[in-house]
């Protein structure tokens, strides 16, 4: 499958990434290379096979919905790039 310039820019935008103008061609080339290789999966007839999501049996694992207190909330906030009092600080979201 051929990937276009517009497509890669659209995908990057979906992934919240900027691609610098001068690097677009390189990304395109790499992506195309890898996709061509990955195309091996399309040469196999697997139409009658189920999908595998994880490697162990797919079953729900339940646990009780209990509140557990995480004592050290300060350590979480210490990693915040910006904070005010005990909150994460971000730019205004609603205009």
């Amino acid at each position, binding site marked *: *499958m051929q*990937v276009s310039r517009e*497509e*890669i820019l659209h*995908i*990057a935008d*979906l*992934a*919240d*990434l*900027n*691609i610098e103008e001068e690097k677009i061609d390189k*990304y395109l080339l*790499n*992506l195309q*290379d*890898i*996709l061509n*290789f*990955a*195309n*091996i*999966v*399309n040469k*196999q007839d*697997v*139409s009658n*096979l*189920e*999908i*595998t*999501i*994880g*490697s*162990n049996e797919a079953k729900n*694992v339940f*646990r009780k919905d209990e509140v557990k207190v995480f004592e*050290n909330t300060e*350590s*979480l906030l*210490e*990693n*915040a*790039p*910006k904070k005010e009092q005990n909150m*994460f600080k*971000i*730019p*205004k*979201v609603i205009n």
Partner: protein
Amino acid sequence: MDITELTVHELQQKLKNKELTAVQIVKAYIDRINEKEPKVDAFITLQLEEALKKAEEIDSKIANGEDISSLAGIPIGIKDNICTKGVKTTCASKMLENFIAPYDATVMEKINAEEIIDLGKLNMDEFAMGSSTEYSYFKKTKNPWDLTRIPGGSSGGPAAAVAANLVPWALGTDTGGSIRQPAAVCGVVGLKPTYGLVSRYGVVAFASSLDQVGTFTKDVEDCAKLLNVIAGRDEKDTTSVDVGKKDYTQSLGKEIKGLKIGVPKEFYGEGINQEVKNAILNAMEEYKKLGAEVEEFSLDVAELSLATYYIIACAEASSNLGRYDGIRYGYRTKNYNNVRELMKNSRSEGFGEEVKRRIILGTYVLSSGYYDAYYKKAQQVRTLVNNKFNEAFKKYDVLLTPTSPTTAFKLGEKSTNPLEMYLSDICTVSVNIAGLPGISIPCGVDSKGLPIGMQLIGNKFSEETILKVAYAYEKQTKFRENYKPTFKEGV
């Protein structure tokens, strides 16, 4: 006696007999790190003062006759994508350069409970994406067998540190070969356990259906000992499995006579270096001498798995790495006017090239229009790979393959060609796709004196079998007695 040459089981013996103290052991490692780390560059963060303090505490516990773990006072190194409370956990990324883990990964709780002493956090490819550790944001780790060559990846730091005797053993993670391939090219033992045997809680997620924590050790006995420490069901990781408490050292030394070893011929065909092939042929002969039944057979999964791997791993990564948005932790750009710019610019400046490439590829294969052609197809192929392995394990107890298609390549040789780098994982990824256990052990050196690794693959939760088979070979061939890293530049 060079303390840093000793295996963990030898150190344990000397601690028990009071021939050595924990302080003596830690000091020996500090001296060794001061001498060799500038050449190898295996560590991102060192914890030497803290380590010495802990060693003193342990020695006084021993002096007071307190009941302590038989591993208390043994040092370790930890790959920098495993959370260590109060210590930087960077994933070798600018994104997490200043991230201090607020809690311990479950495997770290287990390490700490044994009073094993953490000497520091080890280098890796950024977010564990790579096969040479060259994609680390901080530094390039060198291979102790030739300092102009790569240590493999993504756990290049742990592999090089164990090979260079900077730590007696280490923890790593393996998503597509990130323990086994570096272990192979650094001449040490590397184990990726069955998916689900070890908790992933507190391990920075790359591809959650493939990631698994495992071990780097000097020999197979140490490997079994470290697996004893880290294995076990954890309620914080719902994919972890309860297989009961086992002592993995129990199977070591048991006979392998009559055991069936299958050698899939597709794993040492085209693209595999001739010297690596020869080493595998020799290993087959050794196993025959040990009484195993060794047979070639066809298992056409290597290439198919690699293609599947890069679709599934990148898809999962694109989702897992969505959390890095510069808001609650991690890198935040200075350049933004609104929230969207904050997130987009933080991600674009905080992630390296390879990580961005994989996020884009992952987003592409999950996007509408391509989902069925790539992602769904890859999941179906995953079933096919599982089925083929299931068939193989009806006939054989263990499979034997090369670990890496080549010995260590030169720094810079493949870092500009992503696809070529990906091909380094051709022998290892199928094991992750099927969730099987795999161990890499040294099986000789090439004409340049660089180590060659072989991989033993077992059926799910059959770690005891592959450890037993690896141990038998190790005892027979004595790699560590015959070969040592040279720390030379260019061989």
